[in-house]
C-alpha cells in the first residue's frame, strides 16, 4: 500500500476555475488530437506531448491531468500505429489477405483498435466534463502510472 501515500487527493473546492479549465482542456486536446491523428497516429501523440510541455509549469492538478491524458495517448498510440501500417500493407498488397485467416486477423484487429479508441473517446469526454467541474477522475491503470511519474514531486 505504499503507493497509496503518493496518490494526490484533490478536493473540488481547492481547485480554481482556471485550473479546471486547463485540466479539462488537456482531455479535449487529446480528443481532438485523436481524431486528427487517426490517419497517422504519431500526430495525436505529438499534440499531447506538446500540450503537456506547455503546461509543465502549471499547478499539480493541471499537470496531473495532462499527464494522465498523455499516458493514455501513448498507450493507444502503439495500437493505432500497428493498425495504420497493417492497413497500408493491405492496400498495397491485397493478395496477402486472400486467405480467410489473414483477413480475419486483420479485420479483428481493426475492430479491436476501434473498440479501444471508442473507450478512450468516451472516457476522455467524461473526464473533460468532470475536471471542468473540478472533480478529480482517476482512470484504471493510467492514474497509477501518473502517480508514479508525478507522485513524488507533488507530495513534496
Amino acid at each position, binding site marked *: 500500500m505504499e503507493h497509496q501515500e503518493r496518490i494526490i487527493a484533490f478536493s473540488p473546492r481547492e481547485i480554481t476555475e482556471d485550473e479546471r479549465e486547463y485540466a479539462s482542456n488537456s482531455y479535449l486536446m487529446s480528443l481532438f488530437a485523436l481524431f486528427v491523428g487517426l490517419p497517422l497516429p504519431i500526430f495525436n501523440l505529438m499534440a499531447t506531448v506538446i500540450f503537456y510541455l506547455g503546461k509543465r509549469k502549471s499547478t499539480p492538478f493541471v499537470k496531473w491531468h495532462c499527464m494522465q491524458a498523455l499516458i493514455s495517448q501513448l498507450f493507444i498510440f502503439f495500437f493505432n500505429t500497428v493498425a495504420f501500417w497493417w492497413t497500408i500493407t493491405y492496400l498495397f498488397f491485397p493478395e496477402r489477405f486472400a486467405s480467410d485467416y489473414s*483477413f*480475419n486477423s486483420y*479485420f479483428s484487429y481493426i475492430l479491436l483498435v476501434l473498440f479501444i479508441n471508442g473507450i478512450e473517446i468516451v472516457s476522455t469526454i467524461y473526464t473533460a466534463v468532470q475536471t471542468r467541474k473540478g472533480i478529480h477522475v482517476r482512470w*484504471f491503470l493510467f492514474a497509477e502510472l501518473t502517480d*508514479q511519474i508525478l507522485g513524488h514531486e507533488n507530495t513534496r
Partner: protein
Amino acid sequence: MKTLGKFLFVLAAIAAVYFILFQVNWEKLFKLEEKQERLEEKLGKLINDELKASYGFIDDDSSKQVLDSIFSPLLEANGIARKKYKLMLIKDSEVNAFALPNNQIVLTSGIINFLDSADYLSAVLAHELAHCEKKHVMKSLITNFGLDVLLSGSGASEVTNFLTGQAFSRKLEQEADEQAVDYLTKADIDPKNLIHVMELFDLYLTGDLDLTWASTHPAPKDRKAYLQQKINNTAVEDIAKPSLSQEQWEKFQEHVEKQDGEVD
C-alpha cells in the same frame, strides 16, 4: 507490483477481446466469399474451355451413367448435392485425376484403366472431392498467381497447366487424404481402398506408365503411413457391397478403352 498487475490485466483483457473477435468469420460477413465464388465460377468456365480445346471428352450416356453410379453415393452419404459437382472424363493416357475451380473433377481414361476396381475410383474421387470441399483449389491458385492476375482473366493456359499438374502442399494433401477417409467411411466404402490405391501406385512407380497422380502427390509410401494412422482412429462400421461389381467395372474399362481409341 500493483501497477504491473493492472497492466498485465489490461493486456490480457485486450488479448481476450481480440481472440473473441477472431472467432467470427468476418470474411463471410463481408460477402468477400461471394466475390471469390464468382471468380471461381469464371475460372472454372475458362479452364473448362481450355481443356475442351486440348482433350477429347468421353461423355456418352453409358460412361456418364457408370461414373455417376460411383460418384453419387459418395456425395449423397456426405450431404453434398450431386448438382453441385461436375465429373468429367478426358482422353489421356496419363494416369491422373484433378480438381478444377467451381467444383469440377476431371478423370483421365488412363486412371480408369489403371485402377483395378470401382472402389479404388471411389477412393480417388473422395480425395479430389476433399480438395474441392476444403477449397484447396482456389486457395492455392490465389497463393500461386495472386488475386489480381486471376481477376484479370489472363493466363488461362498457365492456370490450366498448374491445375492439371496440380501440386498442392503436403499439408493440404494430407488434409484431403484424411477427409477422404471420412467421406468413404460415411458412404460405407472401406477407406482401406485408399491405402490399396497407394500400394498400386507404389507398385508401378518405377514402370513406364505415366503416373501423373503419383508424381504430383506425396510419395505413396508416406501417404500410406498417415492414412493407416487415420483409419486406425476411425470407427469403420459396416461396409456396403461395391456400387459396381468387378464384372461391371471391367466392362466399363473396356468401354473407356474403346472410346479412347476413337478419333472425335
